[in-house]
Each structure stands twice: as C-alpha cells, then as structure tokens.
C-alpha cells in the first residue's frame, strides 16, 4: 500500500493547500511535498523488485484489487514499481519539491490554488508511472491535463490562453487516438479479459492479436502500433508534432515549465517504452528505420530551431525536442544500452532541463525579460545564479561527469551497435551531430546574456538571487553530477527492468 | 361491404400530408395547431381502420386516448398562444425570433 499512501498524501496535501491561506501556501506546499519525496526516496532504498513490470517481473510495492467489471472485461486497480518506473517516480517527487521552492519568488497571486494544482499534478504523475492497468494509467495520464491547463492559463505569460488551450486540445486528441487504438487491440486479443497491462503484454508476446473487424492479426498489430506511436509522439513530442511545446513552455510559469520539461515530456517516452517497445517487438523491427529517421530529424531539426530563437525559454524548449529525439533513438536501437540509456536520459534530461528552466526563471525574476537581446553581462550582477546556469548549460551539452553525458553516450553506444536497426551507424553519427549544435546555441545564448559588459533593456536593478531561488538549483546540480559520476546508481535497476523487453526481439 | 384496407391507409396518409403541408405553410399559430390536429386524426383513422382489419379493439381504444391527449395538447397550446400574443402582440409563429444561431 506504499504507493496508495504516496498518492493519498499528495492528493490530500493538494486539497489542504488549495484551501490554505495564500500567505503560507508556498511554505506549506513545500513542507507537504517533502513527504512524498521522502517516501519515494525510502522506496528507492527499499526497492526489492526485479525484472520488468509488464513481463512477469517481481514488482515492488504491488497492490491490486478489482474495480469495475465491464462486461467480460475487468478493470482493476493495479499499481507497482519496477526498475524503469521507480527512478521516474523519484524524479517526480524530488523535482516537484524543488519546483515549489523555486516558485516562491515568481508566484505572487492566488498562491494556494497554484501550489494545490502543482501537488495535484505530482499525484497524477506518480500515478502515471506506477499504474499498470490501462484504465487506471489512462486516468492519471489524462488527469494531468486539467492542472497543467490551469497553471499555464492562470499564471502564464501574455499568450497564455492560446498556449493553454493548444496544449489541452492537442495532447488530448492524441490521447484519444492512442486510447482507441489500444482498446481495439484489446478486443483484437481473443482471450484477454482484463485491461491489466501485464496480461495484455503477455498475450501480445504469445501469439499476438487474432484480428479485428476483418483486419488480420499482424495487420491490426501494425495499425495499432502506428496509431499509438502517433498518439505518444505528440506527448513526447517529436517533430512534426512538437509545436505545442514551445508555446506551452514559453507561456507557462517557471515551475510549470520545470514540471512540463522535467516530467511531463517523460510521460510520452515512458509510455512509448511501456507500450510500443514492450508489446510490439515485431513492429518495432518493421518500423525501426522510419522511427530512427524521426528521431534523428527531431534531434537535428529541434536543435536548429533552438539555434534560431532569441527567447531563453524557447531555446530550452526546442532543445527539449532535440533531447527527446535522442531518447527515441535509444529506444528504437533496442539494445540494453540503447533502451537503458534512453530511460536514464529521461531522468537526466528531467533534472537538467528542470535546472535550466529554474536558472532562466531566476534571471527572469530579476530582469523581467527572457530576450537574449535585452541583456548582457548578467554574470556581473548575479554570479551564483549565472554560475549554475552555465553549469546547467554544459550539462545540457553532455559534459562528462554530468548525468547528461552518460545518457547520451549510452544511447549512442547502444544505437551504434544495434543489430535491429539497419544503418544504425549512419543514424547514430547523424544524431550525434546534435552535440555540436547544442553547444552552438547554448554558448551563443550564454555569450550574449550572461557574459560581456553589463547591460539591461528593462529598468530593474538586478541583485543577487535569494537563497530559496538558488538552493533548489544546487540540489539539482548535485544530483546531476552524482548521476554523472556514478550512473550505476540507477542504471543497474533500469537495465534489470529493460532486459526482459529485449529478450522478445532485438539483440542485447 | 368492406373496403380494402389500403384505401384507409391512403386516406390517412393524404390527411397526414395535408396537415404537414399546413404546418409548413401556415404562419398563424392557430392554423399550425389545427394542422397538427389533422395529422393526429390521420393517425386515428389508421388506428380505427386497422382495428377493424385486425379484428381487435386495441386500436379503437387507443384512438380515444389519442383524442383526449390531443385535446389536452390543444389546451396547453392555446395557453401558450395566449401569452405569445400578450408578449408579441401577434400570433404569427415566425415573429418570435429573438433566439437564433
């Protein structure tokens, strides 16, 4: 029942915060958020699972009971953790706490509602990463939309309404597509009588679907695979379904951006890994080349877009698109290092992009502008914050001894030698060029904003950032370096959960 | 002498169509109401004729119900037409168009 406890604490916390007076809401929410963080860290230490959650592995903190009987089909509350989901849960809880602290400065209206929503998001994210029944998982998956819509809409920037509705509708349509596809698959699977993912995965790997409405089994599998891939592609996002992301990122308030980039984007890749890349090994093999092509395009194209931006948040937003491309590449490589590295990269990118958004936010709090052209020489006025920004930027460039490097290296290494993906060497080498472009645009941005003689278009006097703005970034930086120096901390449990996937295809 | 059932059906259908035509063309609320009545009665003809045809009374009984209900409907209708006149100083059904789209 640990997971239920985790969810309950967060949800109740959200309610309490929602009705709390604005003055104390921030501190209160932070205090509350420490509980799930502590819980999840404890779970991290007490983790005793092994294998993959969907492929009859040993789940940690599993609990299950029937919920709804839909005709012959059972919908049951089924939650549990394996080596893939646990790091993401920890990432969620920790990042939320830090995001809350980092929003003490920027959020100065309707605080209680704001922090309540943030905690509500946290709860749903935890649910997404722990739920193992399709409907339960989908509830959490969709429930994220409401708070995110409001966070962007209420506390966002000038074009917040447009960005919010775009995010809301776009991602929801994708979810519907994915839902329909998956349900079709379930009905196509003859003997399955529940929506529990493990059962479905097993059925998929043992024989696959019988067919549906005149569609043959393998044809159905392919259709569903493609439809679900498209559905998740929006959430990830990969080119060309990415356009909601920059708008959402730019308009969202800093902490929302932190969660958006840090965790929400990982929902998409996580789902891809859980569904497409676990249940459809044959389709993965069949569609490896197009997927890899999409991945490479996302990397290069996203990086090029970032190069053209002058808004710091937009730069980071597009670079997220680029980074997610790496993750897709790692997944489609279908090797231990590829998939494991991709999962690691999810966590790593969550930390680093979170750090970047926080740093940008701190600068914004002081200058009230994010335009590269509006400022220069910030390092002169806020050395510490800028120092961390620079560190984060180098982390983003995949500097060794920071988590980003291991993620990327593992992906590249895994992809390069992939036996499943044809021309993998070519794809990998192309994707790797991203590390040059990323250095390009980040260094350009740094040179123009934080270095050079001090100058600011907006008339605010910039001073050093308060401690509670900088502290979260230090924590993140610490984690990033720790994971960079000793990736084994989580890579072992990840690979342990990844291996069963690869036994059904690919060649680890 | 017994008339083939088809004739009754044709008659009722004709009546029904007349009523429908009235509804589509007449703008006076009362005429509209009457047209509806004609349509209902077309149904009644059917019911009674078929009752004869099938040799059970269900149809005839139901016809009585229908008449009663039609009367009630007219009652309500007249009431509404009354307030309509009070508000719009007219019983033309095409006049009230404050709500559209």
């Amino acid at each position, binding site marked *: 029942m640990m997971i239920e406890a985790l969810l309950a604490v967060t949800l109740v916390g959200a309610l309490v915060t929602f009705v709390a007076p604005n003055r104390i809401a921030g501190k209160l929410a932070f205090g509350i958020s420490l509980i799930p963080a502590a819980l999840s860290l404890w779970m991290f230490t007490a983790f005793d699972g092994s294998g993959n959650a969907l492929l009859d592995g040993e789940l940690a903190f599993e609990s299950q009971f029937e919920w709804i009987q839909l005709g012959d089909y059972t919908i049951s509350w089924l939650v549990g953790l394996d080596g893939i989901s646990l790091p993401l849960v920890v990432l969620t809880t920790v990042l939320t706490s830090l995001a809350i602290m980092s929003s003490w400065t920027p959020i100065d209206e309707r605080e209680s509602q704001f922090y309540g929503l943030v905690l509500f998001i946290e709860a749903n994210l935890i649910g997404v990463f722990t739920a193992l029944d399709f409907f339960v998982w989908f509830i959490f998956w969709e429930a994220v939309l409401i708070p995110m819509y409001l966070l962007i809409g209420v506390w966002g920037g000038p074009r917040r309404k447009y960005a919010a509705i*775009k995010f809301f*509708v*776009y991602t929801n349509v994708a979810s519907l597509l994915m839902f329909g596809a998956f349900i079709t698959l379930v009905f196509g699977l003859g003997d399955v009588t529940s929506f529990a993912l493990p059962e479905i995965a097993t059925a998929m790997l043992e024989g696959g679907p019988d067919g549906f409405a005149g569609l043959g089994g393998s044809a159905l599998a392919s259709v569903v695979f493609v439809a679900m891939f498209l559905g998740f592609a929006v959430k990830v996002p990969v*080119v*060309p379904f990415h*356009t909601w992301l920059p708008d959402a990122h730019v308009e969202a308030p800093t902490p929302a951006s932190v969660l958006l980039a840090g965790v929400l984007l990982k929902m998409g890749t996580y789902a891809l890994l859980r569904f497409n890349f676990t249940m459809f090994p044959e389709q993965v093999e069949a569609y490896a080349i197009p997927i890899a092509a999409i991945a490479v395009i996302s990397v290069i*194209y996203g990086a*090029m*877009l970032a*190069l*053209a931006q002058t808004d710091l948040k937009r730069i980071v937003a597009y670079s997220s698109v680029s980074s997610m491309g790496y993750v897709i590449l790692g997944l489609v490589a279908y*090797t*231990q*290092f*590829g998939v*494991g590295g991709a999962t690691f990269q999810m966590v790593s990118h969550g930390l680093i992009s979170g750090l970047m958004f926080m740093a940008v936010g701190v600068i914004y709090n002081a200058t009230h502008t994010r335009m590269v052209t509006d400022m220069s*020489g910030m390092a*002169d006025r806020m050395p510490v914050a800028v120092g961390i920004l620079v560190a984060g930027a180098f982390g983003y*460039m995949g*500097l*060794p001894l920071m988590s980003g*490097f*291991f993620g990327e290296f593992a992906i*590249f*290494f*895994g992809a*390069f*030698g992939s*036996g499943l993906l044809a021309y993998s*060497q070519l794809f*990998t*080498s192309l994707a*790797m*060029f991203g*590390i*040059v472009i990323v*250095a*390009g645009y980040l*260094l350009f941005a*740094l*040179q123009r904003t*934080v*270095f*050079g*003689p*001090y100058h600011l278009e907006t008339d605010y006097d910039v001073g050093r950032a308060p401690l509670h703005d900088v502290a979260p970034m230090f924590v993140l930086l610490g984690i990033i370096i720790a994971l960079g120096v*000793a*990736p*084994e901390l989580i*890579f072992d449990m990840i*690979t342990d959960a990844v291996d069963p996937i690869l036994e059904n295809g690919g060649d*680890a | 002498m017994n008339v083939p059932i088809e004739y009754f059906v044709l008659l009722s259908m004709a009546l029904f169509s007349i009523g429908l035509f009235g509804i*589509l063309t007449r*703008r006076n609320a009362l005429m509209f109401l009457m047209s509806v009545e004609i349509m209902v009665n077309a149904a009644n003809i059917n019911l009674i004729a078929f009752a004869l045809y099938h040799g059970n009374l269900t149809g005839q009984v139901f016809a009585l119900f229908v008449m009663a209900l039609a009367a009630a409907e007219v009652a309500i209708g007249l009431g509404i037409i009354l307030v309509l006149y009070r508000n719009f100083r007219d019983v033309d059904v*095409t006049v*009230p*168009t404050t*709500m*559209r*789209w």
Partner: protein
Amino acid sequence: MEGLFDYAPAIALFPLAAFVIALAFGPKLPKKGAIPGIVATAGSLALSLAMVAAVAGGEEGYYHTTLFTWAAGDAAGEVGEGIEFTFGILIDPLAALMLVIVSLIAFLVHVFSLEYMNAEGETGLPRYYAGLGLFTFSMLAFVYADNLLMAFMFFELVGLCSFLLIGFWFRTRSAPSAAKKAFLVTRFGDYFFLIGVVAIAATFGTLQFAGDDSFVAAAEAAIDDGGQLFGFDAETWVTITGLLVLGGVIGKSAQFPLHTWLPDAMEGPTTVSALIHAATMVAAGVYLVARMFGYYALSPTALAIIAFVGGFTALFAATMGVVKDDIKQVLAYSTISQYGYMMLGLGVGGYVAGVFHLMNHAFFKALLFLGAGAVIILMHHEQDMWKMGGLKNKAPVTYYTFLAGALALAGIIPFSGFWSKDEILYDALIVGTEQPLIMAAYAMGLLAVFFTGFYTFRMVFLTFHGEPRSDVAEDPHPVGWAVKFPLIALGVLAVVAGVANLAPVAKLTGLEIEFLNEWLSSGVEGTTYVAYTDALAAVYDTGYIGTESTTVLIAAGLSLLLAFSGAGLAWKLYNVPEPVAHKERLGSVRETIESNYYQDEYQVWLAEGLTLPLARAADRFDQTVIDGTVNGVSSVSLFGSDRVKRIQTGIVTNYAALIVTGFIALVIVLGVLGGWFL
C-alpha cells in the same frame, strides 16, 4: 617502490581539492586561492616524480589499476559479449613522463600567477585559481587515464576549463567570444572523437589502452584473421575509427583546419595561455596520439594522414607567425606550428621523437609565454612588439631566459628544441626517401624551420633589442621573484632538456645516450617503443641517403642551415636601433597571410553565414507550415462551427421544414436500402 603507486589517484585529486577550496573559500583566503593551488600542484609534482621513480624502480615498469566501474552491460557490437566502462589508472613511462611535465608546468604557472594576476588587483581571482585547479585536475586525469572513454571525458573537461579560463575576463566582448570559439571548434573535433570512441567500443567491446584486453590488441587480432567489421575489412575499419578519434586530436591540438580557435584564445590571461599551450589542452591532442600509438601503427593510411597534416600545419602556421605584431600572437602561431612537428613525428613513426618534442616544447613554450607575460608586466599590459624594444638591459633575467627559449624554439644547436625537432625531421626523411607523400610532409616541415627561425628572432629583436619605442619601454614595471623563479627554472630546462635523447650524437658516435628511447622502451607489453618499432616495420620501410650517419648529418645540417638563415635574416632586418616593418616586401602574399589565409572568415561564414540563416529558415518553416497546419485545423473547425449554427434560423416554420426534410432524407436512405418503395 610499487607502494608509491597507491598514491597515484592523489596526483589528480590534489588539484581537484584546490579547485573546490578556491571555489568555496577563495574570497576569504589570503591570496584568493593561490596558495592551495600552489601546494596542490607542488604535491602533484612530487608524486609524479615519485611515480617516475617507481616506474623506473619497479620490476614491472608500469602501474595499471581499475578504480571503479562507471557502467557495465551487454555490448551489442561485432566482438565481445559484455562491456565495462571503468575509471582506471595507467602509469607507464609515457604517462609518468607526461605527469611530471604537466604538474611541473602547472606548478610554475601557479607561482607565476602570484605576481601576474594577484599583483594586478584582479577581481574574480578565486574563479581564476579554481579554473587552474580544475584544468590541472582534468589534464592529469586525462594523462593517466587507462581507457579511451575516460580519456575522452577528461579531454572534454579540459575543453570546459579552457572555456572558463579563456573567458576569464568575461566583462569584455572579445574574451567570451574567444572562449566560445575555442569550445565550439574543439567540440566539433570531439564530435568525431566521440563517434570514434563509440565505434571502437561497439567494435571491440573494450576501450582499454594497454594490455591483452586492450582494443589495440583486439584490432590487431581482427586484422590478422582478416574478418569484416561493420561491413569493412578490419584494417579499413581501424583506419576509419582511428581517423575519427584523430578528429578530436586535430581540434584540441589546433591542427589545420581546426587551428583557428587557438590565436583567439590569447584573450585569456597569459598564464593560462602558457598552461594551455605548453602542458594541457593543446598537448592533450598529441599525447592522445602517442597514448594510442599502437592503434595508429596498425594503419599506414592513418599514419600518413597524421604526418601530412602535421607537416602542412607546421609550415602553414609558421608562415602566419611571420607577420604578427602582437607578441602573444607570434607565440600562438609558433605553438600551432610546433604541434605540427609533433604530429609529423608521430605520423612518420617517430614515436620517441614526437614525445621528445612534446616534452621540450612544453618547457620552452611555457618559458616563452611566461617570458611574454613578464614582458607584458614590464610593459604595463602592452602587447604590441612595435611599442617595445630595448628591454634587454632593463630586464636581464627575462631577456636571457626568453632568449634561451627562443633558441630552443628556433632549433638552434645545442638547445633542447634542436634535438627533438632534428630527430623528427630525420625520421621523416628516412621514411620519405621511400614514400613521396611523407617526403612532401618532410619538405614542408623543413621549410617551416626557416620561418620559425625568422619569426622567433624577429620577436626577440623587436622586443628586447634596439631603442625603446614607447614611454613604458623607457622605464618598465619591475618584476619580482614569483616571475623570475619560473623563468629561470624553465630556462635551465630549455637549455639542457635535449640531453634526454641526443639521438644524432648517439647514431654518429654509437654511444648509448638515447635515454628517452630506453625509458619508453619499457612499460606495458605492446605499448612500448620496441613494440611500436616492430609494428611500424610492417608499415614503413625506411631508406638512407648513403649511409645512416650521412643521412643524420644531412638532416641535421639542413635544418640547422635553415634555422640559422631564418634567424640571420631576422637579425639583419630587425636587430637595428630603429627597426621598421618590412611586410610590404611580401607584396601580394601579405594580405593573404595577415588575414591568416581567410581561415577564420570561411569558418565564421559556415557558422553565421550558413548555419544561422538555415536555422532561421527552419524556424520560419516551423512557424508557418507546421504550426500553421495545427492552427489551420482549429480555425477551420471554428469556421465550420460558425456555419453550422446558422441552420438554427430562429423561425419555427423553418425548423418544421428542416425536420421534415431531414426525416424524409432518413426515410429515403433506409427505404432504398430496405426496398420499401417497391
């Protein structure tokens, strides 16, 4: 003696500690963090010397250990089942030698900084010393890395540190841009390096430099059984991967065409330049080639390319050095040129020669830069040589040490530079007699000697000789012991370091005095000089002009002749009371040379003239086409909605009509399907 090896990790960790201390407590410390740095580097130096002793003393002759496993898993490559990415230490003669060089230079630079930086009332000194500490740490760790990945990681960190230190004066416009350029250009090289690392790991399932489970051994085996690797036959694949790694080397060691960052890097403090050029960043590239020399030895193509690039760069850079007015610029191009020599040396199989020159160059280039630093102090931060002159008498120590360095650089016998450079050229010559390509490389290297001699002494004469050409030159700012001590120390080394390997003498007299040869001949099986010579025997066949000794004499003679003529020309032109510029004599070439053969221009164009517009185009495409489609869908639906709701006219008769119509439509559809109307 082996016991000492247990302290090996500390060599790198000392500077790291210094970095942390300077960063955390720098502002509160007396010298703003200089003291911890000096202590740490001194410690590293001591330990490095201990390592040398241990390597010399131990019967094994090297030290190899794995510190901890970074990541391990199943490899999905052509060879090998599982793969382990580890952090390990490999201290063999080569590494030990390099450790000493690096820690020594770092130590001296720290000392020098005491006066060069602190005395000038700089702000942000903790940042400076933290940077130096991290820099030294990264380089030392890179030097005794026992596998290619670890090497790559610290190779990258070195790049980061150079970024931080070159951009030390971040309040200016130029420094940050130079820093960015340095990082970007080297990053571009490292892109290939990383592909190389990944490829080698994926191919051989190991990244170890030395030992039986090294990728070098694996590659050798693969070539021997002549199998296919990733669709190529083994040797080609080795060549490809080797060249990919070489990309990183070319970037870091500023070889053509990725040399453009280095001159700009002069924006950093001179001390940093000394460190970068002599011992750390630039040296890292060449050291890497030496480190994995066994791998290149398997591929003649790769070697030839290394040699040719080296030779070309040597000449190319030397010519540019001729026309520079800024003392540091001259040194910068001399650095590029000198590393070209090392590449040439290694490329032609002159393993010892290359390493030898790496060592000597470290000493005299550090000396020259620190000397230049001293001059800059004297001149109150004036760097234009035309404003100097006549410093000879006013600052004798600086002058004589600088002179020693200059002689070494110019390759004048018997200064250290001569011996190593001559050995390189000799090795190039004997190979060149058999291989025209190498001969060309040799020719270029040889020609470069002349230019080297010229620009070196042009610099010396303009700076120290003649009449003072500015007021500051009249009464220069005095320099203290912190400046003099490093200069003297390095000056001595610059003079005598050549003794380490008097190859020509040995060849002529037959004396056993090639100490470096012997030093490098021990070590891990397969990474020794001996092993390399065997391997190379298969690659290059050498030939003599006449006998060996005549060849030696010809080589030495030629290079000396050219060096002297270059120096002589400089003496004639510039060793006069009132020297004047003679550039116009270059005529049409001048423009080209002064603008560095437009190397910067085309690279900047690639970045800002090609890539940026491309990015903007992509952005426009994204905004209009892709996002346009998304918004288009929504606006279309909303327009549709606006039309749909017009059906509700508000006139009840229309409603009735529409109802009937709709109903009839339904009747018709089903009626036709159901055949009711028949």
